[in-house]
Structures are given as structure tokens and as C-alpha cells.
């Protein structure tokens, strides 16, 4: 047996129950070619994605197409108007948040894009936001535009009729949880392979 009794000099010392060891590391983040061009376009109040050889437009672009495993060199400007594909009403105040609750954080599929971006919905009561709602970007004042998606302050309703046929990215072919079709995971048999054309019993 190992002797685990404390030496006499420590017997009256108060036991340590916890320690705080704060850590901070600073990084100089590299956005890369694709995302840098996206951010530069934002400074011109344009929203630019990249089109993959298979036709999908990724936004924001990271430079790689997960279907073909290839670069996505073709730039495509997308609309500043889009459709809410999903949303969440935030009712809790949390550390670092400057938003007044309740507020709405939403996934917005801009016209011409094949990936939703996440952004705020404002200028409408939270309980009126819905899937299919058409929204448009509201930019900061020109003097405050910077290479960040926060240069768009939020999105607001356009007043157009809802898109009742709202297409949720991946619904047809599967990307992540939302892509389960009829309770079945998007496996090889269910999903067409974009490289080989094999498989795909789904739509």
C-alpha cells in the first residue's frame, strides 16, 4: 500500500478544493482565398459565394466542394434577399450578448445560394417570424462597413408573400440531421453519389 498520509507540516493546511487557471491564447486567423474574397466583397456591400463544378453555390465559401473534394474557383454574386429556412427565438440573456431579448436568430437561404447563412431577424415581432418568410439584408451605415458579416446588421421582412415551397438545403439529398428522409439516414443507397452517379432512391 502507498502511504497517502500528509507530512506533519501540511496537516493543518486548509485543503485545496479548486484552482482557477485562466488561459488565453491569441491567434492571427487566416481566412484563406475563398473566404477572404467573400469578406472583401462584403466591404463593397456585395454577397459573393462560390459555385462548385456540380452547380451548387456555397456561401460563405471555404474553397472546397464536399461533393467532389475539389476547389470551387468560380465566384457568384447572390441576392441580398432570401427565405427563412429555420429560426430560433432567443429568450435567455447570456454572457457576451448585446441583444435585447427576445430576439430571433435564423437560417436564411439567399436567392441563388445553396447554403443558408445564420443571421438576426429584426424589425418584426419575434412571434411573427416563420419558415418561408422572405427577408432582406439591412446594412450598417457606409462609414461602418468592415470585412465581416456583421456589416449586415440584420435581415428584415420584405413584405413579399411567403415562399410556401421553401427549399431546405440538403432536404433533397441530405446534409446533416435535416436530411433524414422518412426516418432513414442518408446512406449510400439513398443518396446519389455526385462523382459516380451511383445510388439514390430518394427524389
Amino acid at each position: 500500500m502507498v502511504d497517502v498520509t500528509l507530512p506533519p507540516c501540511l496537516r493543518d493546511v486548509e485543503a485545496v478544493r479548486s484552482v482557477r487557471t485562466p488561459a488565453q491564447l491569441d491567434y492571427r486567423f487566416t481566412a484563406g482565398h475563398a473566404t477572404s474574397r467573400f469578406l472583401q466583397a462584403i466591404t463593397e456591400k456585395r454577397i459573393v459565394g462560390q459555385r462548385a463544378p456540380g452547380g451548387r453555390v456555397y456561401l460563405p465559401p471555404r474553397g472546397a466542394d464536399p461533393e467532389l473534394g475539389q476547389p470551387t474557383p468560380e465566384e457568384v454574386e447572390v441576392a441580398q434577399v432570401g427565405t427563412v429556412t429555420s429560426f430560433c427565438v432567443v429568450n435567455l440573456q447570456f454572457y457576451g450578448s448585446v441583444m435585447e431579448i427576445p430576439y430571433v436568430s435564423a437560417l436564411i437561404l439567399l436567392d441563388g445560394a445553396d447554403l443558408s447563412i445564420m443571421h438576426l431577424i429584426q424589425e418584426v415581432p419575434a412571434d411573427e417570424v416563420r419558415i418561408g418568410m422572405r427577408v432582406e439584408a439591412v446594412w450598417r451605415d457606409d462609414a461602418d462597413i468592415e470585412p465581416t458579416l456583421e456589416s449586415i446588421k440584420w435581415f428584415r421582412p420584405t413584405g413579399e408573400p411567403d415562399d410556401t415551397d421553401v427549399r431546405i438545403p440538403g432536404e433533397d439529398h441530405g446534409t446533416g440531421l435535416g436530411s433524414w428522409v422518412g426516418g432513414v439516414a442518408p446512406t449510400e443507397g439513398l443518396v446519389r453519389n455526385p462523382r459516380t452517379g451511383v445510388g439514390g432512391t430518394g427524389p
Partner: protein
Amino acid sequence: MRDVAVISTAQTPARRRVEDLNEVEMLMPAIGGVLGRVDMTIDDIGFTCSGSTDYLAGVGFSFVSTLDGVGPWPPIQESHVEMDGAWALYEAWVKLQLGELDTALVYSYSKSSPGDLPMVLTRQLDPYTVAPLWPDSVSLAALQARAALDAGLVSTEAMAAVVARSRKSALDNPNAQLAWDRSTDDALAEPHSVAPLRRSDCPPITDGAAAIVLAAGDVARDKVDRPAWIRGIDHRIEPMALGLRDLTVSASTRLAGERAGISDGPVDVAELHAPFSHQELILRQALGLADHDNVNPSGGALAANAMLTAGLVRIIEVAERIGAGEAGRGVAHATSGPCLQQNLVCVLEGDDR
């Protein structure tokens, strides 16, 4: 044991700072290269395993976004280790041993340039009593070098000879980052950086990526003339607490080398993952290669040391020499953690000619 071989390799050139590319953009040429070289696509791969860590680039879940560069759709069989790619290769090798798949893609990458690497590496230490002191990786290596010097197991002259030989060998390595032809005396004339280490005893900070394709049996023979067969592979770890280890020797390397069967045949070439010069001397002792005359012909980690990648690159360097017929049998070693805490040894061999 099922015959599994390295049949294709690729590296991106080691650079101090890959500033214009994000991680997936940096990785894609290695993936495209390693598959293209053996006329394969991701659809020909049974299992994919990668090695990387979010701490280096400071990006959460970075391996998920780099996976895009592989073409993982429809869903592929895939895994990731928060370790050097050599351990990703080990996982893939085990997977192929199961016998249900014949091919595997292994890759790893890192961008160390966005952060302060010696400080970032403190985060792998014991979080209660050591990490809060922020002992940087160079200082810990210097402690080890001091212990080895005091024990008489290494000398400053031998360390300088490792430095001079490695950087000179690197002149022939197009992927190397640090290469020069200077004498041992030049190295010894340098002032200490963190005594007893001089700047040239330390590895460069590197951004880079590397990839390997593994194949079993006849699939390997069909694809290439001379597969580099994995004849033995083993990895061992020592305690996290630095005070519980004898830093002057590498018990885990010795054990891994024995289990991998180094001494079962001749060693034509050895690539040892020794980021600091004294560590090559410790590793040579542990592997029975003290006087071997063909260690780290690539220049080793002193010439390019992409974190989590330099170990996989050692396997690549040995496999390429076997594939080219320059070597019949070789040893590759990878390390992880501070002061050679964890070590992997892989013995590779070509077919008799």
C-alpha cells in the same frame, strides 16, 4: 497479420507561414496528389483517417471543414485523431487488419503560424500543476537536453553534428524548410537560445500537410510495382508527469521498436521524428541505431516540423525510398507530447528483387 502497404504519398512544401490559404485550401493539393498518383478517387477508398488539432490554428472543429477537401459525400467511413498522422495511420492499419476493407486514406495537416506555438503546446501538459506555469516547449526540451548532458549520454558536439548533418541532408529535400551547409563548429559557435539549446538545435515552426494511401495484399500489388509493406507497427506512451519519467532515455520508443521488430532484419534507412537535436541521439540509443549511417536523409524534423504531420512524413520518407528501390527495409518513428512522451515505430519493407 494481413499484408498492408503504403502505395502512395504526398506532402505540401513545408513553409513557415502559409498565409494566403486556409486549412482545407492548404490540404487539398496533398489529397488530390496522393489519390491521383495511384489513379484513385475517394470512391476507391474504404476508410479515411486524419490527424489534426484545433489548438494550432485556433479554429473549432477544424477537421470537419477540412474533410470537405476529401469529398466525403455520400457519407464515408471516416475517423479523426487529435494526434500526429502517424497515429491516424495506425488506426487505419488496424481497420485494414479486420479484413473487411482493402484501402485507406490517411492525412494530417497543421497551421502553427496563427498562434504562439511554444505557448500553445503548454496546453497539452497536466492542467492542474504544470500547464498553469506555461512552461514552453523549447524550455521543456532544454530541461531534457540538460538532463541527458549531465548524465553523459549526449554531448554538445554530438548535438551540433546532428544539426549540421540534418540541415545539409535537407538540401536534397525539395519539401524542406530549413536547409544549409555549415560546419559543426559553426553550430557550436552560436549563442544559446534556451541553454543548453541553441537556435539551430530547435525545429522550425512549420505549416504543411501530408497524405498516404494504404492498401492490402493484391490491391497494393495491382496498383504499384513496389509497395512498402508495413511489417511491424507499435506505439507506447509514458506518464504525463515529467517527474515520473527518465527524460534521458526513451523507454516507450525502445519498447515500440522491439514490438515492431526492428532487429528482425537489416535497417537500410531510418527516419526519426526528433524535433530537437539531442532527441535524435536519445532515439538512436532506444532503437539500437546509435552508429547507423543513414538516419534522417530527408533532414528530419530539424528541416521541417509541421505539428501532427512530421511523424507521418517520416513514414512517407521511408516508404518513398523503398518504393524507389533505394532501400529494402527501413524504420520510421513518430513522437507526440513533450520530451518524447509517446512514440510510434513502423518497420517498412519492399519485396525481394
